[in-house]
């Protein structure tokens, strides 16, 4: 019996030392995740390049860019930028950009975003303001007025008064995609990567073991079983000494 107790004690010590390092890590990450909202960990982004590379934070598709008067509307992944300013992070398809007296109108996903040359957001117009579903192209007629080609027809638009006149056909100079300058794309890519991985996501992956892939999850399971073993043997040894 004495040998048996000594054996348990020996393994309790060994397992305890082995598990301690990982338990500390799991405890710290667990507490941080528990208070993620207060600490705003879901809004703080990781900028470390090797971590971003490790997570493969890169857009899955090629950028789509439209240029008007030297200003750019660019879609990188699901994010849309006006020059260097992000205007939306949940876009399926950028349609184009037009300008009128240094006021820019960007069309995407049934929405129009109106923005000044300096990047001050004037407003977002949606279906409630009359923006038609299935926008395919945005352009300007000979007077510089906005023309939209949508799934069910052509529209002449006054975004100031929200007047939408529907036509069967309208001539316009349409916004067309063009090759994005390398410097701008590098800048946008940096922004895109810099807003792709939150501290909360990293902590959750560390906590669950997913940080090192599926084997990491099994490893955390092993640590959990070790903790169970330590708890049982600890109580058992204490009971033997009573």
């Amino acid at each position, binding site marked *: 019996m004495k040998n048996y107790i000594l054996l348990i004690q020996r393994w309790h010590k060994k397992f305890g030392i082995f598990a301690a390092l990982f338990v500390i890590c799991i405890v710290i990450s667990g507490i941080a995740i528990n208070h993620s*909202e207060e600490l705003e960990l*879901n809004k703080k982004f990781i900028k470390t390049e090797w971590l971003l590379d490790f997570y493969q934070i890169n857009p899955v598709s090629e950028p789509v860019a439209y240029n008007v008067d030297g200003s750019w509307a660019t879609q990188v992944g699901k994010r849309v930028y006006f020059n260097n300013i992000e205007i939306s*992070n*949940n876009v399926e398809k950028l349609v184009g950009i037009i300008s009128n007296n240094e006021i820019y109108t960007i069309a995407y996903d049934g929405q129009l975003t*109106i923005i000044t040359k300096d990047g*001050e*957001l*004037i*407003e*977002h*117009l*949606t*279906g*409630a*303001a009359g923006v038609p579903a299935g926008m395919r192209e945005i352009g300007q007629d000979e007077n510089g007025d906005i023309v939209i080609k949508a799934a069910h027809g052509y529209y002449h638009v006054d975004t100031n008064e*929200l007047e939408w006149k529907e036509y069967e056909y309208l001539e316009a100079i349409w916004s067309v995609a063009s090759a994005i300058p390398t410097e701008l794309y590098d800048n946008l890519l940096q922004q895109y990567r810099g807003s792709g991985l939150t501290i909360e996501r990293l902590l959750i992956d560390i906590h669950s073991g997913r940080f090192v892939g599926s084997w990491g999850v099994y490893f955390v399971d092993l640590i959990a079983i070790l903790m169970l073993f330590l708890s049982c043997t600890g109580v058992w040894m204490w009971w033997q000494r009573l």
Partner: protein
Amino acid sequence: MLKVLVITILCNLIFLSTHSQAKGVYLEPKEFLEQAFAENPPNSKKLWISKELKAQIKSMLGYDIHVVRLRYWDNGEKTAWILEEIGRDKPITTGVVVKDEKIEQLNVLIFRESRGWEVKYPFFTDQFKQANLTKKNQLDRNIDNISGATLSVNALTKVAKLALFLNTHIKID
């Protein structure tokens, strides 16, 4: 064995049905306006958000307005507002109807997050009915939280306060 199979299928169905309810357009903004104004919505009006008003809204309501022009609908009897506020990561589009300085109706129109969608249900949104603003710009009642949807609840509460505040602002103007 048959019992296990039935329970597994039921669990999967429950999971799939709740998951499919999460994101989406619950009510088209146009339909919301038609409902709010009995099929006859007025033309929209413009509210220009000055720097002072923006700062006032930020300090009093904790709401960041990123645009300088907001649209609202006013038929003289009531006003309707379509506003957005981020819950956790993405904006929740909400429609608010204000009549006699009180909320007549609040609807979640578009929900883009993967969690917290329970705020769309009337059992939650009905809490805002007849709510108005106190002198300290707080709602005159407590809004019960929904476990697991705290950020969505906070976002809708902010939007409700903003709609009431803006409604008072346009009446004063």
